[in-house]
């Protein structure tokens, strides 16, 4: 039986200044999974996400979103970059940042109107940030900024969500709130790919996992492949993680 894949990566190689960062990656991500990408620093996790999004051009290989190149499918994909990738002193409000999520469906020149504003307000409500809508973004805490980024992705109403370390620098409450939203999205049939650092929480949060360290080590259901063997192969040291059933 042919399975339906949200993302297929074929023989992807990415190099910065001739140094390979990703080496011949093959990856088929089934639709409807909540997948963690784990690996040590410098393993190419963010690079993999950026290559899927076409932000970084690979030197070999290809990426397909539902069988087509990214350029034709960008409406299907929402991206949550690392929080540190933008200047939070930028003169704008929480609501305005969330509104930016609607720009993709508007295309060039057309301006956001009432419909877009309503969608943004709903997304803010979903992440529990409605009361902060008019706040200047530098006046938000790290956790709140991350929620704003999540709301901005929600408003895109995409089928695939790519998130680069959404739990970095957020408090425990926010982490729980975010993971609940992610699980809800999966229930609604969305595909979610999350660069993740905390190995302890992988079995609790995710149902699918990819081990990455320049090369792909393993990919599959958490219950099948999240084990000491793969962790050791990925991190290069003996790993013992207690997987709770």
């Amino acid at each position, binding site marked *: 039986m042919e399975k339906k894949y949200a993302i297929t990566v074929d023989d992807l190689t990415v190099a910065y*200044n001739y140094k390979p960062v990703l080496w011949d990656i093959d990856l088929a991500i089934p639709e409807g999974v909540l997948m963690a990408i784990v690996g040590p620093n410098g393993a190419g996790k963010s690079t993999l996400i*950026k290559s899927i*999004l*076409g*932000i970084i051009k690979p030197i070999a290989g290809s990426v397909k979103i539902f069988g087509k190149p990214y*350029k034709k499918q*960008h409406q299907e*994909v929402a*991206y949550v*970059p690392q929080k540190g*990738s*933008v*200047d939070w002193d*930028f*003169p*704008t*409000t929480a609501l305005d*940042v969330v509104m*930016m999520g609607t*720009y*993709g469906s*508007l*295309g*060039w*020149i057309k*301006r*956001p109107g009432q419909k877009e504003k309503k969608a943004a307000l709903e997304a803010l409500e979903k992440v529990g940030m409605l009361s902060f809508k008019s706040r*200047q973004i*530098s*006046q938000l*805490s*790290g*956790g*709140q900024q991350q929620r704003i980024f999540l709301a*901005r992705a929600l408003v895109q109403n995409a089928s695939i969500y790519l998130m680069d370390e959404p739990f970095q620098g957020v*408090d*425990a*409450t926010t982490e729980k709130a975010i993971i609940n939203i992610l699980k809800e999205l999966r229930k609604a049939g969305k595909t979610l790919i999350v660069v993740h650092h905390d190995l302890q929480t992988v079995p609790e949060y995710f149902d699918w996992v990819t081990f990455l360290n320049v090369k792909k080590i393993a990919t599959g259901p958490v219950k099948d492949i999240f084990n000491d063997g793969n962790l050791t192969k990925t991190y290069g040291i003996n790993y013992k993680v207690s997987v709770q059933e």
Partner: protein
Amino acid sequence: MSSAQIEIQIIACLVAVACAIPGTFLVLRKMAMISDAISHSILPGIVIGFFLTEDLNSPWLILLAAMTGVITVVLVEFIQKTGLVKEDTAIGLVFPTLFSIGVILIAKNANDVHLDVDVVFLGELAYAPSYRFLINGMDLGPKSLWVIGTILLVTLLLLITFFKELKISTFDKQLAATLGFSPVVVHYGLMSIASVTTVGAFDAVGAILVVALMIAPAAIAYLLTNDLKKMLVIAVFSGIASALTGYWIAHYLDASIAGSIATVLGVLFLLVYLFAPKKGLISVLFRQKRQQMEVYLLTFLLHLQNHTEESERHLNHLSEHINWGKIRSKTVLDLALKNNMIIIENNIISLTEKGQGFTEKAIDYITTNSTVAIEKMKEDFFLFRG
């Protein structure tokens, strides 16, 4: 006021507005130095353009010189991408080279060309009205008015049309790329506008003032607002205000108009830097002082919470226990009383319910960084505003 005076002021204002708009985005993109580079490296473009057209206001000259500006940006990025030097070094390498080629070109052809380095640096707004735009002998006003007016009109049209694209690619380049807006197109679009504006304005105000008019109004506006649209408006109006004030200062001092405008901009920035309501230096110092005081308050409340024994909470022994001077102890005590956080009975200080709640929430915030409980307290206490 003579008509020449009015014309000069109109030109100065149009230049100020035309510069403030791309300047705002340059400042937000942390590319202020690029405007400096462009303003210098267009010189060879202007000289070559002048050889070909013999008219400083020719549209061809403006486009040719503007191309030199874009080439500057390309060169800077190219050098930077090699990874051998950083961006500021790359800028420092490119523009003096191009600028000096321009200087040599002027020197070699000094006899044929009515261009000199002084004018390049400072411009000569005072002479702007003497070059008239004539059609069939009809006087339509100064040429530079038409030049900068056209540039401003195009800039405004592009700004209104592509405001959304400019905003998103300035704030989050990667998101812009993933949503299908090419940040490269927006980037070079902005660089082209900045270059064209620089060339158009520089004849009137010179290379140095162009930079001042691009950067200073944007920097002033940045300190005064948290809204991009308002930032643009404030930048435009501080540009206009400085242009007019500078003009009249120059008039009374019989000094260079361009120099006076740039000085006014500098003084205006200094004032805003000191007195801006939220981001100004004085306001920041005040806030830091308040935050420090609130940390003392919290320390004091925590002390009360930790010690149930009355000896530790006696009014007269307070300063020994907590090792503070009398003045600080008194200030903190007054602050706590004013906020109804403590009560004093028989010289023994106790936490009130409010004080207890405040301490717990604050400690919880500081240890867990969770902002849920303290959100309402942000209004009253600077401590929680980050």
